[in-house]
């Protein structure tokens, strides 16, 4: 019996495993299970174009429906996996049935971390992770006038920008003293904060939400730790994610402290023929400040790269991940692009001026380019990926000098 390659999770990582496996000549049966009702779709527009009205839901599918037939990928939607038996190579599904696999790929992603606050179950409290979340949020914003966004990370800030663009009053509450504190250096946090303020978004950093206040079952305000009360008719929480891995961890797969399945740079878990990629997995990255510590980058690129590595194993030509991590965000028409992974003690060098239309921040580690954050400098970002990959050696003075051609450092 030829038991199928079974992919649990039908988003970027899952789809890319199936697509890459076929591209590389994998000929066995492929089954992909997704617990949502939708075939794999693009997620970045959910907090960007879809919310601001520039993108329609019909533009979101990642592949045409015919793709799955053409590529002999059996896509089962609305199908939730609840248990795993590694010894029996078997999955237990929510409908009570069992499914045998030959090779298992876990790409179940993550879900929005729920608010653990009094009032979190009031009507009008939203999170944003899936297309259904986005459609519910869009419907709720039709009549919203004041929105409180809890969390000043990428999702929270993109939601704030998209809603402010539509003329809705938005307050962002962030527990850290600055926006995007885990992701970008203080100079960039300050730039982003200024960007939001000039577009009318109210920012409350260094404040904790104590409670959500309701009236007749609907949220009507947010109470903060300093006693401030913010009136609102809608709350959007963007406070991070929880990996969808409980069912797999019960089977004994090793995970990091956050519950993400540990994999090597080929996407292999501790169990043979069991792989994982995307937001449910943690993988060592040669570009991380601590290269041995598995990290989860929570990005499309990481999902796709992990998936390609898994596909390469399936056809017996293993090619580990090692690409430079990159990520982007759009807020108020400003394009923010990040290459590499910064560390807290990197030397931060500004190239250009923050008052200009575009600039970049270069993070130098031991005299080499470790990460670059660019604002409205897309070509510099693409060059930055090459510079980070090459760990280009350069001094701060040259980086800051706009007349210095950084590409020169690639071929010394």
């Amino acid at each position: 019996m030829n038991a199928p390659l079974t992919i649990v999770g039908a988003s970027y990582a899952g789809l890319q495993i199936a697509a890459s496996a076929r591209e590389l000549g994998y000929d066995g049966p492929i089954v992909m299970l997704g617990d949502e009702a939708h075939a794999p779709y693009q997620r970045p527009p959910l907090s960007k174009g879809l919310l601001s009205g520039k993108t329609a839901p019909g533009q979101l599918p990642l592949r045409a429906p015919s793709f799955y037939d053409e590529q002999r990928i059996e896509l089962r939607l609305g199908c939730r996996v609840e248990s795993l038996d590694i010894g029996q190579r078997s999955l237990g599904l929510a409908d009570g049935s069992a499914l045998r696999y030959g090779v298992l790929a876990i790409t179940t992603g993550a879900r929005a971390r729920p608010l653990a606050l009094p009032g979190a179950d009031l009507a009008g409290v939203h999170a944003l992770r899936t297309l259904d979340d986005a459609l519910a949020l869009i419907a709720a914003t039709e009549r919203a006038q004041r929105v409180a966004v809890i969390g000043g990370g990428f999702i929270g800030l993109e939601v704030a920008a998209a809603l402010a663009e539509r003329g809705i009053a938005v307050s962002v509450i962030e527990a850290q003293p600055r926006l995007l504190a885990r992701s970008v250096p203080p100079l960039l946090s300050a730039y982003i904060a200024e960007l939001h303020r000039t577009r009318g978004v109210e920012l409350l950093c260094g404040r904790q939400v104590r409670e959500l206040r309701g009236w007749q079952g609907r949220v009507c305000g947010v109470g903060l730790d300093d006693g401030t009360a913010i009136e609102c008719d809608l709350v959007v929480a963007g406070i991070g994610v929880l990996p969808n891995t409980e069912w797999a961890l019960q089977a004994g797969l090793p995970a990091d402290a956050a519950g993400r399945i540990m994999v090597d740079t080929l996407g292999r878990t501790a169990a043979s023929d069991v792989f994982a990629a995307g937001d449910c997995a943690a993988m060592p990255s040669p570009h991380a400040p601590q290269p041995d510590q598995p990290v989860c980058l929570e990005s499309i690129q990481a999902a796709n790269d992990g998936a390609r590595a898994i596909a390469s194993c399936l056809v017996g030509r293993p090619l580990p991940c090692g690409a430079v991590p990159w990520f982007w965000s759009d807020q108020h028409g400003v394009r923010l692009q990040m290459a590499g992974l910064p560390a807290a003690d990197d030397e931060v060098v500004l190239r250009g001026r923050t008052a200009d239309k575009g600039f970049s921040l270069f993070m130098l580690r031991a005299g080499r380019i470790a990460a670059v954050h660019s604002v409205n400098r897309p070509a510099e970002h693409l060059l930055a990926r090459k510079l980070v990959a090459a760990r280009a050696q350069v001094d701060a003075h040259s980086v800051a000098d706009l007349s210095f051609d950084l590409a020169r450092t690639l071929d010394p």
Partner: protein
Amino acid sequence: MSVIHFILKDGSTRTLQARHGASVMEIAVLGNVPGIAGECGGSCACATCHVYVADADVDRLAPPDDMETDMLSAVAAERLACSRLACQIAMSAELDGLTVRVPHTQS
């Protein structure tokens, strides 16, 4: 509906129906045209939907804006005068029969 012709890396041509308003990148990705990645989902952020527009069609397109021009300077394959990012070309009745060639690499 218009049609668009993609010349693939192996020299063969794939012709697809093109919904007006959709970008050439969207049409290519939905139509499973190999060699056009569109990793950023069409927000002009990744330069992985680079195409060469047929000489006869170049003048039918509005010229690239600053952002696209900037990105084109960093495409993986050779940049030619007819290089464009497929995500920035919106299909319309005027572009019926557009022919674009897929470069040998996007990354």
